[in-house]
Structures are given as structure tokens and as C-alpha cells.
């Protein structure tokens, strides 16, 4: 079973997406802040990290930088959530090492498709 870590400071989104992913056969761990997310990433070594771009405290971009700098976590693919205008942010996030982006508001189908796609891309 693939393990997915979701990092988002909106507890309701966290609850809903983890529920949806669990039902579809993934093991899900959640973190409600960037700091907690980094800790859990190192401890649990998930197959995929879902990361919200806009968070209080350490934001998604910073978390991504830390993940990509650490040799332990740098190979874990990261899927970013963003509410921003598409094209600009995709390029930026991917330059910083994200595997892909999801645009808010996204449907559960989009989430599941993207998760599957990114997990399959992994060498």
C-alpha cells in the first residue's frame, strides 16, 4: 500500500482529502503545519507528499525547499496545491522541485488522477 503524507493547515481540507485517499486504498498520514510536515516526512518516508502552497508560518515553498535539500527526502515526489493563477506558479513550483501542481478548487477525481499519475511517474 502506497503511503501519502498530506501537509495543509486547513484541518477540514486535510480531513476530506485524507478520507478520500484512504477509501481509494492509500495509507495516509497528515500534518497541519510545515514544521510538522518536515518531521513526519523524515520519520515516515512516504511515497508521495501533498503540500499546500499557502500556509501560516512556514509556507509550501519553504517546505519544498527543505525537502529538496535534505538527501533523505529529496527523492520523494511532491504534489503542490495552489489557488494561484495557473501557468506562472506551475513553472515556479516545478523549478523548485515539485513533481506537479493541483489547482484549487479541485475535485476528488482530479486529486486521485494526479496522485496516481505522480506515483506512476516515480522511477
Amino acid at each position, binding site marked *: 500500500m502506497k503511503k501519502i503524507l498530506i501537509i495543509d493547515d486547513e484541518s477540514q481540507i486535510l480531513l476530506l482529502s485524507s478520507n478520500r485517499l484512504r477509501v481509494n486504498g492509500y495509507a495516509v498520514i497528515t500534518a497541519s503545519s510545515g514544521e510538522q510536515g518536515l518531521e513526519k516526512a523524515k520519520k515516515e518516508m512516504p511515497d508521495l507528499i501533498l503540500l499546500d502552497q499557502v500556509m501560516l508560518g512556514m509556507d509550501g515553498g519553504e517546505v519544498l525547499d527543505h525537502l529538496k535539500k535534505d538527501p533523505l527526502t529529496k527523492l520523494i515526489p511532491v504534489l503542490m496545491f495552489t489557488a494561484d493563477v495557473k501557468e506562472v506558479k506551475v513553472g515556479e513550483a516545478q523549478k523548485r522541485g515539485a513533481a506537479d501542481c493541483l489547482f*484549487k478548487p479541485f475535485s476528488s477525481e482530479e486529486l486521485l488522477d494526479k496522485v496516481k499519475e505522480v506515483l506512476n511517474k516515480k522511477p
Partner: protein
Amino acid sequence: MTINPKMKKRSPKQPRSKKKAARLRRLAEPYGKPFGEKQCHGFCRLTSDMIQVFKVEGALLDANPAWYQALGYKEKDIPQLSVFNVIHPRDRKEAEDVFIAVLRDGKPRKFQATFIGKSGKELKVEGAVSRFLHQGRPFALSGVFHDVTRYKHYDQLKGEFISTVSHELRTPLTVIREGISQIRDELLGPVPDNQKAFLDMVLQNSDRLGRIIEELLDVSRLEGGQVNLHRRRCDLVEVAREVAKDFKPIAQRKKLEILADFMPDAIEIYIDRDKIVQVLNHLIHNALKFTDKGHIKIHLRIREGFVECKVSDTGKGIAAKDLPHAFQNFSQFERMAGPGDRGTGLGLSICKKLIELHHGRIKIESVPSKGTTATFLLPQYNHREYFKAAIREAIGRCEGKESPLSVIIFDILDFEALEKKLGVRYVERIVLKMEKIINEALRRVVDVAIKDAKAIMVLLPETSRESAFTALGRISQILEDYLARDQKTLGIEVHGNVVCFPQEAKTLEEILDRIYS
């Protein structure tokens, strides 16, 4: 207000009756100088519009009190001033183009710009520029402008408000939609059918609300001028075919036919493909929605410099009284009550703005109970115009950003000899293919490769000379690999060079000169 047209005719060549002239002089004198000496007098001194008169190359000749007051200059500053000192650097190129055009054909033209006062204060203005003749030859230009800073500011506030509200609505809407959808999909336990029907109703409406939010955001971005087109050359016939294909299943369900009437079978055009697809999607969707029997027809033609696209249906039509409001935000009419396929009333307004952004036009005609036809026209460019437009967009993207625009030019060596050897059509196909290969190799959405007759230009906004040379090396290798793969193309040699804006060329004309020299 435009400058009093009668004034232009008052050149010394046209004598008027002495009595009339004296009367006019008396009228003008209390407000300033007599006729003949200065161009700004009489009514010009009274108006709150800013008026400036300037020589063709830019030197200011005269201005009215409203102009001095708005910009903070004194009359004695005039001899040292050029009209370009007053216009924001961002608008100078456009100003130049407008002035030259007015000078050439004498037709007054509307002009929007930001003016800069003596103290550096910025003023958004709108107005018109017209031409003065002296002894039959263009002598000076006059501009009449009014200050629209306040209105622009309100517009901006409105735009920001809509976009903030829309962003804030997205997250709660995501939670509502996903929460209901998980209950509906029985993720939390079994749900009886009658409850499912209610949940479906909630889902449909939250989707509709989501669409309204997205479209409101589109409208506010379009109205706020925040939408940049990423124009590419593409084949409109192919685009239309693809969009029509997506609608086949819906049409079949309603037992409607989608007919295609395309002439010729390929129409090359310079557009932001995604945006035009959005327009076509909306027009075809509308046509299907309001048609119960008959067909939907998509028609493409070339008409004197324009490409014409018509989407017509045999549906219920729009009442004559409603037609003039078709492009207004939130206008919906003849809608059937009940759930299901409900629109937002923003689609046509978005279409109009997208088409206008492409310098095109859109209109709707309708005969009640016979059908509706939506027609849009998009300008057709030749290679040179296409390249000019692309360069202008690229320069715009770089301005205010400290970083230059680099242009790589790939020249095809011994072009004429190649054409003789391989045939004109064959060489044209290869150049087109190379343009495609380069476009595929480019990494950012803002980069674009455009073919001219015997060269391919690559525009790289916000790219330094060094980075442009790195890109040149990479693309050259890809081109060489392509040319080496085919026996016939073996004789073709390509030479690449880089021109950097603004270091090596300051204006659009200079860039073009550098490129075509």
C-alpha cells in the same frame, strides 16, 4: 472633445472676410493670444480638457491652462519639452505608432496613456490625437486629453474586490463540495436513494457556484487588463474541428447534428489557442443548449484580412429586445426553469473580451424560433505583421522588469539555391517543421519561435544575452540533429545569431532593422 475642426482650416491660405476675422479675434483675445500666432486659444483656454500641440518629432509648441495645471509645468518650460517627456516610457512606443498613423492619413485616433507631471506624478489620460496642416503639408499634431485617473482607480478597486472575494470563496466551496460528494458516494455509510437525489441537487448547484466564481475571476482579470495572451500561430480549422469533436456526444444525445463548413481546409492564424478554444466552447455549448431540433453549423471563411467564424443554430433564438444586452455581464434570457444545464450569464461577456483582446470583433444575430448566429472576426497577419505583433508583446513583457528581450535569429544559408534544388514547397515545409521543432524545444510559455520567409526568429523575453547564447547552442544542436536525419535536407545549413533589446536596439523599428539587415 476633439480639437475644433474649424481651427485647422484657418491657415493663412484661406482668407475669410475681414469683418468675420476681426470678430473672431475679439472673441479670442480676452482668453489669450490672437489667432494665427498660437494654436491654443479661445475655447481651448476655457476647457478642463488638457490640450497640447506638438511637432511631428515631439517638440511641444503650445498647451492650454488645463494642461499646465494638471502636469505642473509653466509656459516657459515649453521650448525645452518634448511630448515624450510627458508620456510614460511604457506608452511611448504606442504613442509613436499612433502619431505616425495620424500623420500619414490625417484620421484622428483615440489614445490612452499615462502622463507624467513635472513632479513625477502619474496621470491616466484618454483622448484623441489629430493633425494640423500648414500649406497642405502635415505641420503639427494636437492631442486633447482628459484625466481618467480616478475612474481607472475605481475600476482597479472593483477588480481587486472581485478577485479577493472569489479567492476567499474557493476554499469553503471546496469543503462543501467534497464533503457532500463523500456522503453522496457513501464513503461514510449507506445513503437511501431519495437522499441521494437531494445531495445531487446540492452538488449541481455548488458546481454552478464554482463556475460563477471562476468566470467572475476571468471577467475581473479581463477588465483589469491582467490577461496576457500567449499567441502562437495555429490552424483555426484544426482548432475548430477539435472543439466540435468534443461536443459530438452531447449533440448525439439531443439528436442534433454538428455541421462543419470550412473554406479553405487550413487557415493559419495568430492566436492564443486556449482562449479561442474557450470562446468556441462557449458558443457551441450555447447553440446546443438552446436548440432542440435541427443542427449546429460551424463556418470558417477568409474575408479581406480577417478570418470569419460563425456558429449558427436552428434553435429558439433570442428576442429582438434582448439582443442588445447579449454581451452584458449576467444577462440571461429565454432560459428554461428547473435544474440542470444552467449558465452563469458571464460567458458571452468573456467571449467578447477575449475576442477584443485579439483585436477582433464579435456579434450576435438572431431570429426568434428560427435560430441564432454568433460571428467573430479575427485579424489575419502576414509573417512580418505577425512577428511585429509578437515582438511588441515580448517587449511589453520585459518592460519595467530590468531584464532584456533576446532574439535569436536562425538564418537559412543559400536559401535561393536551396529552393532551386529542393523546390519551393519542400523548403517551405522544412522551415515550418524547423519552427515546430524549435517551439517544442522551448521551455517557457512566453518563449516563441516564428518563421519568416528564410529565417526563424526565437523571442526570449526576460533573457540575458548569455542565456540566449546557451539556448542558441542547445537549439542549434537539435536542428542539426533533425537536418542530419534526412538525406534530402543534408545540404541545409543554419546560422544563428542573437540580438538583445534594449542594449542593441531601442525601438521596435530598430529591432526589425537589425533582424532583417
